[in-house]
């Protein structure tokens, strides 16, 4: 019935000092399709893989605008995400009304982290089953944060959440040092390459299953009237970005050359796609 004892109540620690309900909530995030975030000196962007429940169904919404200067990508329970994003919108409106100032992004993320923390401590509640990547632009520049149901939030240069996100992280860790000086187009290309790593064998990124969220000045493929505000690109407008992608590096042959073998020995090898990763099948 239960995978663990000590997991029926989120207010009780296991003897190992863990809160199993909270860990299960983190699993819910891993069930959601992947989202990737990157930041340069001028931009912070989100990329997400959208699922569709069938040939005739629409694709799920993965990105939400919170305010002119903030947007999120989600992985996990969409309905929990709507609750939290409504709260974020209220916070943003409150800041505009009381101080006539766009809400600082870090405070917005801290606010939902505090909300999520309560659900990990009080009896009779459950943690949120959703993780966010939050991008925003305030007077301290562009920012990228990860929020998770355990009530933590961290700022990142680049990060990914959701199913198979470890593969995307591996890509990001390899390339993140170049992100700071990237222009928007290169940043998106890196993001798409990272997102591609989360796909199953026979799948590829299309204009239908990919969403791109941007804060920062307009890129060369965007209209001249585009402001620095958060915008979500979906469908035909992202074709131009998909075409900039380069072919995936061919996986090394079964018998690696001695040079490649020594290189892979010195650097920690990317973890192989987890065999037990119960990813929900994409039906496209």
């Amino acid at each position, binding site marked *: 019935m239960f995978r663990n004892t000590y997991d029926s109540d989120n207010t009780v620690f296991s003897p190992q000092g863990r809160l199993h309900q909270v860990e299960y909530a983190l699993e819910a995030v891993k069930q959601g399709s992947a989202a990737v975030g990157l930041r340069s000196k001028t931009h912070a962007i989100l990329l997400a893989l959208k699922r569709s429940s069938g040939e005739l169904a629409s694709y799920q919404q993965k990105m939400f605008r919170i305010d002119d200067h903030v947007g999120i990508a989600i992985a996990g329970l969409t309905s929990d995400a709507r609750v939290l994003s409504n709260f974020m919108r209220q916070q943003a409106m409150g800041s505009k*009304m*009381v*101080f*006539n*100032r766009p809400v*600082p992004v*870090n*405070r917005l993320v801290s606010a939902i982290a505090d909300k999520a923390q309560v659900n990990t401590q009080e009896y009779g509640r459950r943690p949120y089953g959703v993780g966010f990547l939050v991008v925003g632009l*305030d*007077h*301290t520049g562009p920012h990228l944060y990860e929020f998770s149901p355990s009530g933590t939030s961290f700022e990142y240069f680049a990060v990914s959440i959701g199913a198979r996100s470890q593969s995307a992280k591996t890509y990001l860790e390899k390339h993140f040092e170049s992100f700071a000086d990237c222009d928007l187009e290169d940043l998106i290309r890196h993001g798409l390459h990272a997102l591609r790593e989360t796909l199953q064998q026979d799948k590829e990124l299309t204009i239908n299953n990919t969403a791109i969220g941007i804060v920062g000045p307009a890129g060369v493929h965007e209209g001249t009237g585009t402001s620095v505000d958060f915008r979500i690109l979906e469908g035909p407008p992202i074709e131009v970005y998909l075409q900039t992608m380069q072919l995936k590096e061919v996986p090394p042959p079964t018998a690696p050359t001695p040079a490649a073998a020594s290189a892979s020995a010195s650097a920690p090898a990317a973890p192989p796609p987890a065999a037990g990763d119960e990813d929900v099948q994409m039906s496209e």
Partner: protein
Amino acid sequence: MDHFPTNWGRPKYDNFDTSATYPLHNRGQNQSTTSGATQHTQQPIVTGTSVLAIKFKDGIMIAADTLASYGSLARFKGVQRLHPVGDYTVVGASGDMSDFQYLQHILDGLVISEETTAQDGHTLGPAEIHEYLSQVMYARRSKMNPLWNSLLVGGVKDGQRFLAYVDLLGVTYSASTLATGYGAYIAQPLLRKAVEGRENTLTEPEARAILENALRVLFYRDARSINQYQIATITANGAEISASLKLETSWGFAEGIRGYGAQTQ
């Protein structure tokens, strides 16, 4: 006859104590001296008079005298009516001084929660403080319980000068010279003549001289003013509020005034 002096001059509680036989300390908890009614401010009690403010080359200058009057009585002569908020802003207040002290308390709490606690580099500038105050003032007037003040908010942040007004109704406006109270009639024309069109060239000593002159005229004309004042200077280097200063005045002309007073001819 009510034999308890503490009841004298207070309303009777007919439902509870027809003959007022209970002394104050034996009455029910809900029987306050205002018989449970909520009291709202009907008028200011201890008041400060005009606040003046101008833009100049390097920032904002705000001036106010140090008198808090009780009606026409010059009751408290050394009250500071300029209050720094954070590193970039000064608020000057005329009107009810107890309401101003309450606002100072609110603003100090705001700086603690928004800046000292957060410490994330997001600080409140004069524009944010002014917006906040306008919301507080409007909320209170909407409860039919206004904070009886006219406030000037001035400051410099990120190279931007900011100067604006907000009052007990929540009315706001902005200009390069502002004055509250009697000063809006007496000093504002003088300030406009001296400042408008020269906001970007006036030096700090020139701006100070303009305000001192306006304060002097107000001291001659405004019966609720005093010849002691403070000037706040807010520039890119921060806010500085002067010590209490004395106005130089000359009353020789009074000799020649005829028509009222003690003269016999």
